[in-house]
């Protein structure tokens, strides 16, 4: 391969600098928070949330305006020597989703910190804001990164920001959960790094665009991809690699749980998607997709049953996350595409993306609602929550609406997603996947209704909050849940936005 090929792999687009802003803005916030100290932290965070949301909107507008992917070549150094950032329709959807969810969670966290005026500039709130910003930066970097090593650094940044979130309250079991999370994520990162070493050794580049054009041969390539995907699976907590997720996501403070469950685990999935779709040769991708789909289906069934049996609300939601992640992995065989239809033209592609986004919204809403419940009653044992619907009607409604999306009940984004996936399974002749999707929906119905049933109950002694819960604390969850429901208005067909910036011919991925 000639370095600095005549035709550059990436051509910067005018709006590309927005991607730099999306990645770097939260970093600026982190540095400013450290420089200005705890008293200014919340203010900096809120400003950044607003600005970042603006950047995300600008990126969406720019993508829609140009109809092509946004690209930026950092420092003007063309890959393979340098780094490029690129955002196509899917990436932009992820960026926008992240900005929305982070903003809602920030709003919630600000309201919650306000409840304890004595500690609002203390350790946990200050650290939370810094970590939230870092998570955001890392997520954006992952969604726009084009270089696999750059993505490794971003993944590590994500891990290092996510792990301390788990043990913000400092209880022993959350420290244990954080440690377990860190160690398993580290194992995953190292496998991923090993894969990049092999890829670089084989191709002399880690740029995804250049790799997809390279002739993929030799055992090194397969071993490298397998290691990277396996490493990412460990971070995505797909069954049976979910050992760390339930204690970590259930133990973290509500706002942190929402970030972790809604956003953080989506990043490794997104990278797996890119590896399978953009790097692996189609036939190999098809076989690997089968393996991933089997794990995904197992995840759906197994962890839904586990969710059904959890005594604690947050553990139930955490297990539900593992189950819902499974849906993302059964997309691979469904969105395999064909000679005439690229994967991103299939309904399963839209379905998968929609599942990702609506799960993020719904799960964040659920964890925030659970946070309000824990804040109000001091515990989250489902059996002792009888009648919480009367005490916290908004949170109960948010939980129920988010539940609709998880169960795949109309009108909701989750329904459209599951309907599209089911259609793809029926058309593509995957009866077992169709059955799994339906069974998963049933089991989700079971665990959501367990909670809804408690919400509607009228115990002899009415449940009373131990402290007043301000309305604004409950609002974030409701807004997210409503957003998940509104996603149900997306038409039941391949969604053009998600195909923007993708090659529309098959020349790139044809064998």
């Amino acid at each position, binding site marked *: 391969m000639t370095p600095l090929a005549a035709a550059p792999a990436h051509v910067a687009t005018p709006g590309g600098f927005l991607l730099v802003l999306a990645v770097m803005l939260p970093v600026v916030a982190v540095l400013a928070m450290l420089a200005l100290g705890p008293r200014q932290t919340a203010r900096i965070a809120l400003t950044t949330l607003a600005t970042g949301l603006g950047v995300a909107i600008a990126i969406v507008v720019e993508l829609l305006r140009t109809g092509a992917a946004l690209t930026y070549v950092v420092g003007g150094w063309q890959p393979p020597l340098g780094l490029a950032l690129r955002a196509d329709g899917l990436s932009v959807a992820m960026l926008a989703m992240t900005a929305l969810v982070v903003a809602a969670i920030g709003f919630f966290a600000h309201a919650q910190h306000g409840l304890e005026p004595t500690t609002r500039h203390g350790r946990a709130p200050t650290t939370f804001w810094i970590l939230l910003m870092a998570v955001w930066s890392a997520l954006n970097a992952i969604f726009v990164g084009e270089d696999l090593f750059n993505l490794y650094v971003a993944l590590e940044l994500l891990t290092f920001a996510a792990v301390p979130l788990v043990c913000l309250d400092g209880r022993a079991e959350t420290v244990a959960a954080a440690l377990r999370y860190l160690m398993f994520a580290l194992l995953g990162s190292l496998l991923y790094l090993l894969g990049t070493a092999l890829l670089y050794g084989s191709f002399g580049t880690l740029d995804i665009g250049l790799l997809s054009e390279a002739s993929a041969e030799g055992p090194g390539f397969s071993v490298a991809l397998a290691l990277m995907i396996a490493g990412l699976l460990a971070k995505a907590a797909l069954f049976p690699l979910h050992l760390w997720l339930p204690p970590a996501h259930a133990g973290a403070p509500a706002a942190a749980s929402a970030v972790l469950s809604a956003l953080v685990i989506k990043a490794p999935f997104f990278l797996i998607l890119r590896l399978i779709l953009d790097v692996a040769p189609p036939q190999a991708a098809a076989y690997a997709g089968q*393996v991933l789909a089997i794990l995904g289906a197992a995840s759906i069934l197994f962890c839904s049953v586990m969710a059904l049996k959890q005594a604690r609300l947050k553990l139930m939601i955490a297990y539900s996350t593992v189950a819902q992640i499974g849906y993302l992995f059964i997309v691979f065989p469904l969105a395999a595409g064909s000679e005439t239809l690229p994967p991103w033209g299939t309904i399963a592609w839209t379905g998968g993306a929609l599942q990702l986004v609506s799960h993020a919204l719904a799960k964040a809403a659920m964890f925030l609602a659970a946070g309000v419940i824990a804040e109000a009653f001091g515990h989250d044992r489902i059996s002792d929550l009888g009648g919480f619907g009367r005490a916290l009607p908004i949170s109960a409604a948010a939980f129920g609406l988010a539940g609709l999306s998880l169960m795949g009940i109309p009108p909701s984004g989750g329904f459209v997603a599951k309907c599209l996936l089911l259609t793809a399974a029926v058309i593509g002749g995957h009866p077992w996947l*169709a059955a799994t999707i339906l069974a998963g929906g049933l089991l989700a119905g079971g665990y959501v209704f367990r909670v809804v049933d408690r919400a509607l109950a009228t115990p002899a002694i009415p449940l009373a909050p131990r402290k007043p819960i301000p309305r604004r604390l409950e609002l974030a969850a409701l807004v997210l849940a409503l957003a998940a429901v509104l996603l149900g208005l997306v038409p039941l067909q391949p969604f053009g936005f998600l195909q923007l910036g993708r090659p529309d011919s098959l020349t790139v991925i044809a064998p």
Partner: protein
Amino acid sequence: MTASGLLLAAAVLVPLAMAACCLSRGIRARAPFLLAAAPLPALLAAFLVPDGTFVFFPAPFRMSLVLDRPGAILLGGAALLWSAAGAFASPYMGRKPATVRFAVWWLLTLAGSLGVFIVGDVASFYLVYTLVSLAAYGLIVHEQTASAHRAGVVYVVLALLSEACLLLAFVMLAASHPDANPLIRDVVATLPASPMRDSIMALLILGFGLKMGLVPLHIWLPLAHPAAPMPASAVLSGVVVKAGVIGLIRFLPFETGVPVWGTVLIAVGIVTAYYGVAIGVTQTRAKTVLAYSTVSQMGLLAVLIGTGLENADTGATTLVAYYAVHHTLVKGALFLAVGILAATGGARLRPVLLLTAILALSLGGMPLTSGALAKLATKPMLGYGALGYAMTLAGVGSTLLMLHFLATVARDARQNPEASAPPGQVLPWLAVAAASLVIPWSLYPAIAGETVQSLFQAEALWKLLWPMALGGLAMIAVSRLPKLRGAIPEGDIVVLAEVGSPALGRLILGIQQADAALRRWPAAGLSLVTIAALLAGALMLGA
């Protein structure tokens, strides 16, 4: 958009808007009074909007509304019962804080249950069908008793199962269609030629049959209907089960017919009709008896639908709707009657009992009642062969079951103190009872194609009377068997299902143990390496 279109849309949107208004504190206090008014747009639409009206709401709603003959008949009856039951509910439920919640669930269920009669596209049908299914849960568990709780759980499990079957069926139906959300009539036209025809038919019958309560999927019905407050029981048993009926009417290809599946429906229907009676006579609670009667009546409807499907008879749908609206009004009135009888005693008891008896025997086909009209109207369709006799025999069963019901309510009311139900409850009841007579009579000529005079002929009367007499004899025989009473628990074979729960518990325990084992660090580490190896193998295979 035309005025008819707006009215049709209002039928669904007004109740939904009212439910949303209950978020406001001021309106919330008046919520119970909304209940009677909420179905009025639908009632108007049923009478005023001409048959065949079609409205389409463009994206992002993509909802189309259709009013056809069967839909209009069912919509009118349902709206009437909802309105009356709503009027009945506001004094019945009183001014408790829980009443507001009840009102919200009521309005949501109402919107869904009326919606299923008028939506025209697949996705919207699924939407409103789900709405009625899930919102009804709130009505069932409203009283928060242990039995309501159990009923709610069984109901939700089966409702979700029904949803799952239907979703798959709809997806299969729409899969071959270019538009992702086609009109129901378009996809149904392609159904007979679909390569997945048999799977789709099986799923449709399973899904809608569950909602109708066809044996053996009826188990939720005798648990759920009696558990709800009285007016809710009336609409659950009277209207909500009809969501299954309209589903079958809409989604089965009556134009071309599918004889095999027609036969299946007939067989299931007959079994259900007899089974409901057989279990019903062993029950001791009036509401449960009525619920089993609903099961039995839904069996009869299934037979009618099956016959239409077998003979590719498009006219069957109107007859089915006619029979169904009779059942809607009568069953609704009967449930309300149970509520009224419970509050009535002394001298007032006799007239109330008398009207209740007339309503009850109407289900058995007493001459001059709506039941008689329904039976006579559907008779030609069934023919005079074995099927006709089987249906007549089912009528005997209905009479038996209704006599048992009358005996039960009479016994229960005997001890009541001297009192009368408040007029706020009696008037709605009387209205439904009157409607149950008037509406079938006024529709009869158009539906059956016969004059009303033909009903008074001796032959017609005899056709109705001898099964009733037989039913009476059967009642005498049954009442000699005291052991029968209470012999079978409510929900009959759900008990069998619950016997299987230890095995299920063991399975779940196994899953929990497996989870604990897999989540140990060394096991997870090994899994990770194994998955990496598997992936490498898969990738090499394809490279």
